[in-house]
């Protein structure tokens, strides 16, 4: 049996990678993938806890997160296409029309 802490450490590393990618990368697609990475890091900790405590609710939560992530990527990709069409770029530093 793999100890719980291993899972949690991996989950933390995945989440941190996601955050770092989110902050550093300029391409929207990459940022989007970083978000997915963070979500999956969280998912990992959910299932780890669920296995540890023999509780199903954690696994149910993971399904919910997946559904939300799928919906989010559908909407997000649509937005990305719209941004690309209007701005002609995927660099987020150039998508700054809301700036004062």
């Amino acid at each position: 049996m793999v100890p719980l802490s291993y899972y949690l450490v991996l989950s933390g590393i995945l989440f941190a990678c996601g955050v770092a990618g989110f902050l550093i990368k300029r391409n929207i697609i990459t940022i989007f993938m970083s978000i997915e990475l963070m979500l999956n890091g969280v998912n990992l900790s959910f299932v780890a806890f669920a296995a540890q405590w023999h509780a199903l609710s954690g696994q149910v939560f993971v399904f919910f997160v997946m559904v939300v992530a799928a919906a989010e990527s559908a909407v997000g990709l649509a937005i990305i296409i719209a941004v690309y069409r209007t701005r002609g770029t995927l660099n987020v530093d150039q998508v700054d029309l809301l700036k004062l």
Partner: protein
Amino acid sequence: MTPNLHLWLIPVLPLVGAAINGLFGKRFSRQTIAAIALGFSGAAFAMALWVATHASLLPVLENLAPWIRAGDFQVDFAFYLDQLSLVMLLVVTGVGFLIHIYSVGYMWEEGGFYRFFAYLNLFMFFMLTLVLASNYLVMFIGWEGVGLASYLLIGFWFTKDSAASAGKKAFIVNRIGDFGFLIALFLMIKHFGSLNFVQVFRIVSGLPTEAAGAGLLTAVGLLLMVGAAGKSAQIPLYVWLPDAMEGPTPVSALIHAATMVTAGVYMVARSHAIFDRAPQALMVVAIIGTLTALFAATIGICQTDIKKVLAYSTISQLGYMFMACGVAAYSAGIFHLMTHAFFKGLLFLAAGSVIHAVGGEQDMRRMGGLRHHIPWTFWTMTAATFAIAGFPPFAGFFSKDAILWRAYSSPYGNWVYWAIGVFTAFLTSFYMFRLWFLTFFGEYRGAAAANPGDEHSHSSTDSRAGAPAPHGHIHESPRIMLVPLVILAVLSVCGGWVGIERFDKFLSPTFHAGATVYSAEEVTASTPEPEPKEHGGSEALFTGISVLAAASGLFLAWLLYSRRPQLPREIARALGSFYEAVVHKYYVDEIYAAVFVKPLIDGSTRVLWQGIDRDVIDATLDNSAEGAREVSDAVRHMQSGNLRSYAGWIAAGAAALIAYMIWMGTR
């Protein structure tokens, strides 16, 4: 069960007229407007006459609807008619109706014809409410309402600055008086628990006379007098009335001579039960009346505007009425009120006819010799002039003589009142005949004779803008204006023949409560008169003296203004600064401006506006808005529009939150 007199119809009829003309009059023709206004005011007069035929039923109380009920205190919409209000009712509706007729002719060329008649009918409604009220609160509605109508009509030519400010002045000065009236009402509610005339007077008549120390009744009486002084233009609140001459002349005749300004006299006479038991208050009324009579008469001598002379004359005559009320000779005061309504209304209407004839000129120095051009106006005005001067057998003689005699012979009377009264009668006669000679005799000195160039520099205060310059064709007024003149002239001649004795007797049910107070034994007990008062022979002597005073006034006016017209200028030069003071109305307006108006304006400007409003209220808002702006100025740099910096903030926030939770967890 008394038959229903439907008193409520009398005030409501003019109100209906006012409503129709005021709401829809703009679309009506002038004929229709005049028909509506005359119809409804005439109907009110007819109702009043019909009611007068039922005089045997008086007093009548007509309760329409409850208004205020609070515990034991109750005020109703109710009308009350007794002999006193019947006299007022007939004067108001009668003179009012005649002036309505006159106004049709006078205002025919004016813009806002419907507005004028709507206001005039509205005034009638409020005045009749005032007169018919059965309690002080309903009276107060009328009291305020006539003030409103007066304001609207003084400022009828509201595009003219002087008219608009004259209206405001009248309204504000009246507010001061109304303040006193209101306090008096509050005192009555607190101490008598009622505002109903009958109830209040019943309670009051159970109280002892406050001869020595001044008490509640004196306070109530004095406060009522403050209200009356405001409405009836007595010292020190008379200043609004001369300015009120900015209004159209029929308005001056109706509101500022015949009816509204007498409301104060009516109110004092109505409240006689209170005044009878407050000799100090009564004395104040008499002193104010006497001083006002004298003071206004001296100013009247030096006025050159025909309407201003009549305005000061009105103030002076109202002073007589208060003098009469102040010596508890209420019926004499009301008698003078009635005759005054006839002859002063006529004087104003005739003056309006003169102004009409000479094309809007109001300065008497620019009139003269008009008697051949406008004979009807001349003869009617002559009747009124003799009436006000107090020549027998004209109406003014009887009422003024009654007042002067009572001023001396009443238990509250004093030879000082009488002496000032007679001197004022002399002054009255002098300034009225001065007006008469200047206007109707001698050579015409008007625009045709003078240099036409300066016609507008001496422009009249009556802005009859559409009136053509006279230039030789001085014309008599149309018949619709002359008929009221003639009727009022007849009344000015005959109105006094009823005599004070019969009048006294007619009013005695109203003043009966008062009569018991100054019965014989109380007279000897309470009057400090040095000599016993004889009736009969001495009364005739007094009458002779007052007629002599009137005659000498006539003679002096003839001497100065007809016989030797250069003499007044020399006298004026000889009197020097005193003459200057009188011409400037004793600088009262200037003093009021310096003492009351200017501090008020300065205080409002510096303290209330610049201090409180600008530096406190506005500053609080401005500074908090400025603070919010500065803070947001500082933090707005966070919102760079850079997506990754937002993400960085979120991550930093999340990290801070996690650190906090860990820190909390490890404690």
